[in-house]
């Protein structure tokens, strides 16, 4: 069988990944029309391209259905509990940089640290009768981060998009989201907490620790890693 390489199926992440492999003499491309999610690999034998949503690549790696995959550190850490046991980091690809951060309204001049956030959350709960809401799609990462920091009296509310807008819409008081430049935060009158960096993320090539390999696949992996290194 062939070695399976999972790559994000669209957008800049896909293009940048294709460029990164091309710079190492391996051509990845979508076959047929732009709408068809099938891929071709040139420049190395016995490797097949699997085009997937970036968010599904961690799961596929952990299940061993693909041998290698490109996706963000944030998604691997969020989606895989004990991720070190199911995947191994091969290479950081140097693009797709994004930080998962915690942000509050800029006008909260009394809140600069997690410590402040905790105190403000306690007062907020007393005043409003419910916990301070933090909108995010990174539930596990945010919860673990806040627990380690000893922040209480908050609740996470799910937001799968336009997260920075939830504060103005009054469906959340704070947000935890990915930012690369901070532009969206500023435009929505939010600021990053001084110690609110939860995770630095970038596009990364991962190897599955669970995918089984026959002799041919193992040889292909060695050859691929040699070419990439």
């Amino acid at each position: 069988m062939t070695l399976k390489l999972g790559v994000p199926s669209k957008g800049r992440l896909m293009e940048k990944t294709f460029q990164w492999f091309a710079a190492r003499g391996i051509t990845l491309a979508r076959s047929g029309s732009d709408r068809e999610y099938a891929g071709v690999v040139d420049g190395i034998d016995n490797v097949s391209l699997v085009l997937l949503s970036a968010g599904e690549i961690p799961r596929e790696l952990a299940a061993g259905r693909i041998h290698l995959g490109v996706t963000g550190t944030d998604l691997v850490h969020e989606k895989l509990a004990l991720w070190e046991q199911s995947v191994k980091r091969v290479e950081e690809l140097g693009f797709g940089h994004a930080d998962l951060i915690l942000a509050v309204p800029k006008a909260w001049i009394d809140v600069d640290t997690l410590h402040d956030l905790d105190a403000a959350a306690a007062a907020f709960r007393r005043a409003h009768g419910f916990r301070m809401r933090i909108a995010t799609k990174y539930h596990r990462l945010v919860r673990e981060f806040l627990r380690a920091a000893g922040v209480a009296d908050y609740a996470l509310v799910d937001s799968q998009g336009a997260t920075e807008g939830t504060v103005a819409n009054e469906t959340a008081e704070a947000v935890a989201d990915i930012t690369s430049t901070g532009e969206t935060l500023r435009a929505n009158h939010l600021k990053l907490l001084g110690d609110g960096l939860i995770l630095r993320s970038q596009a990364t090539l991962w190897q599955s620790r669970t995918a089984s390999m026959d002799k041919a696949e193992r040889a292909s992996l060695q050859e691929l890693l040699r070419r990439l290194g």
Partner: protein
Amino acid sequence: MVTRAETNAKATALRAVFEREGAQVVEPPMLQPAGTLLDLYGEDIRARAYVTSDALRGEQVLRPDFTVPVVQMHMAEGAEPARYTYAGEVFRRQERHADRPNEYVQVGYEVFERADPAASDAEVFALIAQALGDLPVRAVTGDIGVLMAVVDGLQTSQLRKDALMRHIWRPRRFRALLDQFAGRTPVPPSRRALLAGEITCDAPLVGLRSHREIEARIAALKADADVAPIKTRDVDMIEALLDIAAPMPGALGRLHDLSVDLPAIIPAVARVSTRMDALSARGIDVSSLMFEASYGRTSMEYYDGFVFGFKARDHVDMPPLATGGRYDALTRRLGKGTEIPAVGGVMRPGLILELESRA
């Protein structure tokens, strides 16, 4: 390997012990509405319980314990005094320890009684100790109420006491706050600038938290800046208290010593003393029973007085075979204006059988 049938048989036998004491058997549903638990525990419950949902009832939790539904039931319709027992599965989400079970059987006993709290504490502890029989276990006791009394007796502002009290169950955060209030951590430049009135903001305020709330917190921070640091002597006393780990008579001696300098803890220490006598009257050998002042602080439970646990003596990897404690404050929170002193404990028949087979 202990089978499910063996565990269930053991559970029934253990429950019968409590039934013979006159406890009423209760069977709360496995699916609990998520609202109450989320309100009590916040997000931590999602890390530790399975939350599921349907379109009609919204979020439901697979019960992570029996205590909360039993307290709710009692506060809604229970007669006084009351004793309840139950046996059934609880579900705990595991994200860090793949080897720990995510469902297991608990057998529990809960006492709601006003007359004599020390006697109720001793009753629960002694019945569980008896049910464990000759198993090679070691019991540890503690009392969260003593630490609470120390915090309450500190010579500092109510605001600082409230902040410490709020984080009693988060030892690291508690420690950080204590250091801050004792003037041991430097004031961050951003805070100094805020207090000096040097921070302004021209960004529009978005969201529910109002200008008034922001102003109120700044006013509170300014007032707090004028509060004298908590004395080193008092911080040392809290440390001395948390360090206490000794058989009950010795531990009580040290608690009495501490109460000379800290009269606020005298009633709490007296409760420990009365409980020791009540345990003794129940036939417990208190001269070898451990008392650890910090016991029960890291679990996310609702205990605010007596706490206890039974651990396998020779298997440190094994979770406690039985745990319990007093949770008066929980009845207050779930009681909608009423409250009743309550104490209870749970046993894990599966672990008991496993220990029997290992012994």
